[in-house]
């Protein structure tokens, strides 16, 4: 039962990865791609890690650390990339 749940989480995560990464190939703006990446990609990665956590509970400190750094860094990096890539002078 737990095994099935963890495989479901991992497969869902890979589905979210494809969903978030495929817009990278289009001709859209950086902000559009950043949005799809930071939402779907982060959710997919977290789902994969939760699947791994269910599979091997003995490694939980490491995996919880991975989830926390994913949640913090991907939001911060999203803001920084959006700020740096937009035209200069408009933020003063």
């Amino acid at each position, binding site marked *: 039962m737990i095994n099935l749940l963890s*495989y479901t989480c*991992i*497969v869902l995560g*890979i589905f979210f*990865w*494809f969903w978030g*990464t*495929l817009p*990278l*190939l289009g001709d859209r703006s*950086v902000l559009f*791609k*950043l949005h799809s*990446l930071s939402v779907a*990609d*982060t959710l997919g*990665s977290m789902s*994969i*890690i939760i699947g*791994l956590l269910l*599979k*091997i509970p003995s*490694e939980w400190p*490491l*995996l919880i*650390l*991975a989830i926390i*750094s*994913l949640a913090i*860094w*991907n939001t*911060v*990096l999203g803001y*920084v*990339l959006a*700020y*740096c*890539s937009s035209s*200069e002078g408009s933020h003063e």
Partner: protein
Amino acid sequence: MILNLALIAMILTLLIPMYEAWQDDDIWQKMLAFASAATKCSIMILVVSVLRDDWMIGVVGVIILSVGNAGLMLLAHVLKRMNDLANE
């Protein structure tokens, strides 16, 4: 067996940002693709560490996840500063 298949699917998703970084000349699109590839690689390392039941590989993945993203953030600031200096 299923984790092996999952790893193959992950390698397929990893090819997408690599292709994007290769064919796009805009520096911010490249940064975006590299940020995506870094996250995907570290998650793949975590999957391998669980697959092989090896803690030390997992530690490498978590270090890439935190320090690698911090490095990308610093790189974005350096690039912005260089652009500002070039436009002055």
